[in-house]
């Protein structure tokens, strides 16, 4: 009886109301942090000497890029948990995170393009980081497509978990090969995420928005996992009885 304390929360019936109580807090936290971060980033932080005000895109670009990678890692973590312990909830969390991860990847790519155009005159540069980010998007899309194609939830969970893990194992290989390809083909090119010598307001703003993005991802994942649980366990007795089931 020493283990169940934590494993208790792996039961959808226990986690469902917990997630319901938690997500509004994370949503509020996300909104507050985002407002504080953008206030400092857009209104307080000084104009950069080299890039002018175009650099202010960094306050969403870098947090989005970080979150896109973090979410994939967390997904792979849940994938491992679901395959090792065969917990349904881990797989549901993995599923709940994927669309948000893909969204942050798109945001990172889009803001990268809008930053690249004024900074070095091209919407898209085959820079190692941009290219890796693009491949990360493809990994997300493959995962989502596979999950969507499988009707049986149990099989979808296990197949998705395997694909997420295989992808995570391959990410370092892909990143290494893309970096190598980039150095061979372009020589030392501009590095996109190298911040212009950052004033500390800039760093504060960037970190605030990063935590905002993190809270947003947590809130959305908790909300979505509740929907997934409802989709799947509509017939379960606990869902029928609890008024929380709504």
């Amino acid at each position: 009886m020493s283990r169940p304390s934590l494993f208790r929360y792996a039961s959808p019936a226990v986690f469902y109301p917990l997630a319901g109580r938690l997500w509004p807090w994370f949503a509020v936290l996300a909104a507050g942090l985002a407002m504080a971060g953008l206030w400092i980033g857009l209104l307080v932080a000084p104009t950069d000497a080299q890039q002018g005000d175009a650099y202010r895109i960094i306050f969403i670009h870098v947090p989005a890029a970080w979150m896109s990678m973090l979410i994939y890692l967390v997904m792979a973590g849940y994938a491992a948990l679901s395959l090792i312990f065969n917990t349904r909830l881990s797989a549901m969390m993995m599923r709940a995170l994927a669309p948000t991860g893909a969204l942050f990847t798109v945001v990172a790519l889009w803001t990268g393009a809008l930053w690249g155009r004024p900074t070095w005159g091209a919407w898209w540069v085959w820079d190692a980081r941009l290219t890796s980010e693009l491949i990360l998007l493809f990994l997300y899309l493959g995962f989502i497509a596979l999950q969507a194609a499988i009707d049986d939830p149990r099989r979808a969970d296990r197949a998705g978990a395997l694909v997420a893990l295989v992808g995570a194992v391959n990410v370092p290989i892909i990143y290494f090969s893309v970096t190598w390809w980039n150095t061979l083909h372009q020589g030392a090119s501009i590095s996109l995420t190298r911040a212009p010598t950052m004033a500390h307001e800039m760093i504060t703003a960037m970190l605030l928005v990063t935590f905002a993005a993190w809270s947003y991802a947590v809130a959305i994942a908790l909300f979505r996992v509740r929907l997934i649980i409802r989709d799947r366990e509509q017939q379960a007795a606990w869902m029928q009885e609890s008024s929380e089931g709504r």
Partner: protein
Amino acid sequence: MSPVIALLRRDLLLAWRRKSDATTALGFFVIVASLFPLAVGADATLLRAIGPGVIWVGALLATLLGLPRLFAADQDDGTLEQMLLAPQALPVMVMAKIAAHWIVCGLPLCLVAPVLGLQYGLPTDALLVLVAGLLLGTPIVCLLAAIGAALTLGLRGGGVLVSVVVLPLDVPVLILGAGAVDATLNGLGAQAHLSLLGALLIVFLLATPWVVAFALRIASD
């Protein structure tokens, strides 16, 4: 005769009796590679520059073409179920099936590639590197695609799905394989590329059959 050899022989025999699968992939490869000059123009310098990449992408897609069906026939006639129940280790049998598929579909691509390379004006040493790279790289593509084939077993639209799931993972192979030919063309030597490709092949040979076996068990639960 060991069951693994028997399985390999059976798959090769089946492919021999139904040659169209192998020849379709080969035909696709040749046609795709020949379409590019028509699209970008017959400028010799340009063709030599894009040749390695075009041939590699063509080979990648052609290898992926037949793979989604890798386990489908076996599932339809119940052989797969026997394999899952058999006392022999499933990863080893999976390995035999992938090997058979590569011999039927991958190897001919590697052998035809130099002819296409000539169309793009690649010199002899680059052609040799191209073949060496394809010989090391196409098995990796087969191994990775086998994971996808196993996971999508029996699903609607399985073929396209395999490509979407697996193609991002093929990026390193593509970079190293096409890069090897490029490096030769630029007089840099392709040894580093080919060594890394070989290292990848060894890692994937050791790891993938277990993953595919696991995926097969997921799909046929």
